């Protein structure tokens, strides 16, 4: 779910843009040159993942993966989210250019939080990694929808209904994201554990 142009009030649009510029600047400073390939990979994969639809009963949902981005990139996650969203907005019109700041806050802050959480919880065993992965996948999605609802609410009471419905609709998606993150983390732990460092 992305916020499109023209929804949020001007103050929020500009405020979230300023916050995004600041957070990106911090991210740029914290990202070392040699981890650039990793950031580029996750950004592109984050983008590609949004094209993958999974069936859910009669409809289908697509993944958004803020949780996995946080797990894989930690403090660099915000740059990856901003770039991924910028590309999605420019190529597909998912979310608008003026809403880029708000969308980045909405997915980037949960990604940063989840990245920190994963580091605390992951432990050394496969089991602890798997549980932390699932939790991060779930929290990443549900927190970002929470941010979405909160941002919509800044547009006034009129938008409360839309926010609530988006939140309820995202519950099944969060569970799917949790399961996917769980399996992906297990896979990476077995195949290329250095990606989870």
């Amino acid at each position: 779910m992305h916020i499109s142009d023209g929804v949020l009030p001007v103050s929020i649009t500009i405020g979230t843009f300023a916050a995004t510029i600041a957070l990106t600047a911090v991210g740029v400073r914290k990202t070392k040159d040699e981890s650039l390939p990793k950031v580029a990979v996750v950004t592109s994969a984050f983008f590609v993942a949004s094209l993958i639809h999974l069936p859910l009963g009669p409809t289908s949902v697509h993944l958004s993966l803020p949780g996995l981005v946080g797990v894989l990139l930690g403090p660099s996650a915000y740059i990856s989210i901003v770039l991924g969203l910028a590309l999605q907005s420019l190529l597909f019109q998912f979310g608008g250019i003026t809403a880029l700041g708000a969308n980045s806050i909405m997915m980037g802050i949960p990604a940063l939080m989840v990245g920190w959480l994963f580091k605390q919880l992951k432990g050394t065993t496969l089991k602890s990694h798997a549980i932390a992965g699932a939790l991060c996948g779930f929290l990443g999605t549900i927190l970002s929808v929470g941010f979405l609802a909160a941002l919509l609410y800044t547009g006034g009471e009129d938008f409360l209904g839309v926010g609530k419905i988006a939140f309820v609709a995202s519950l099944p998606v969060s569970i799917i994201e949790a399961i996917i993150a769980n399996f992906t983390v297990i896979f990476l732990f077995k195949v290329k554990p250095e990606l989870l460092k």
Partner: protein
Amino acid sequence: MIDTAETIYIPFGGMILAAGLLLAIVAIIIRRLLKAARDRKAGHHHRHEHDWSVPVLDDCSDLDSVFHKWDPRLKIFSILVYCFLVAALTKIIWAFCALIISLAAVKLAKIPFRNTKRRLMAMFGFLGMFLVIMPLTVPTQPGDLLLFFQPIPVPFNVRGLLVAIRIILKAFAIALIMEPLLNTAPLPVTIQALRHLRVPDMICQMILLSHRYIFVFLNEANRMYTGMRVRGFRQKTNLATLHTMGNFLGMLFVSSFNRTQRVYEAMLSRGYNGTFPVYTDFFARPKDWLFGIAWILLGTGLLLLDRTGAFIIW
């Protein structure tokens, strides 16, 4: 509060709505069936399950128009400012004007219709939600017009519908202007212009690299997915599907990472130091400045009309 709202009861309105909805659903099903039949005839099976095509961002960059000749730095700056001004509009009539201006700009930039259609269709999910939900959920305020489609007990608030329409008009106006903004110069030139506008080098490099990798990974993902299908994988709503897709994603990460690492090392060994050498120089003519100022004035004008024209309530 609710007493001051105007209420109109539409007898049997609920029935009419239900009939309309039913007709729409039937029409959609028939269209799907026809499309599936056509796809089968053409030999495309299960196309909907895995249509991962990504549009090319700068496929019209070799045309010739006012936008193509415009200095990219001024183009990016003034159109971005214009976008924010449009996003601040609050009345339907001016949002509609902005949409007309965007359509004119697309026409002027000679962008074909399929590009614009693609952008508008992509936004339909999010905006359609507003169109359906807003009229039913906005809190009633004095002066609102409520429609009751009997026997449905929930009022349909016309103000909510107008808010949704205003948002859609603004979103469409800004989405359409993206085509003249991005599709009138090759992407490396646009990125170069961003660098001149003080966007950090690292961000510019990352946009360029990620954009390139998207197509590489999609290719990879398609290849892997074809392999999975050949081995009998079909998506269903169950844990096994999620398990497979989780592994698929993990494998995509691993193989992409290995490849990127190799490419990065190859770049380093060829002397890559964080920037690509560029030999395009920008040159802003007075005409370019005028065009940029005109766009910003246009946006400011719309916003002024929007904020001062109090006599127009929409």
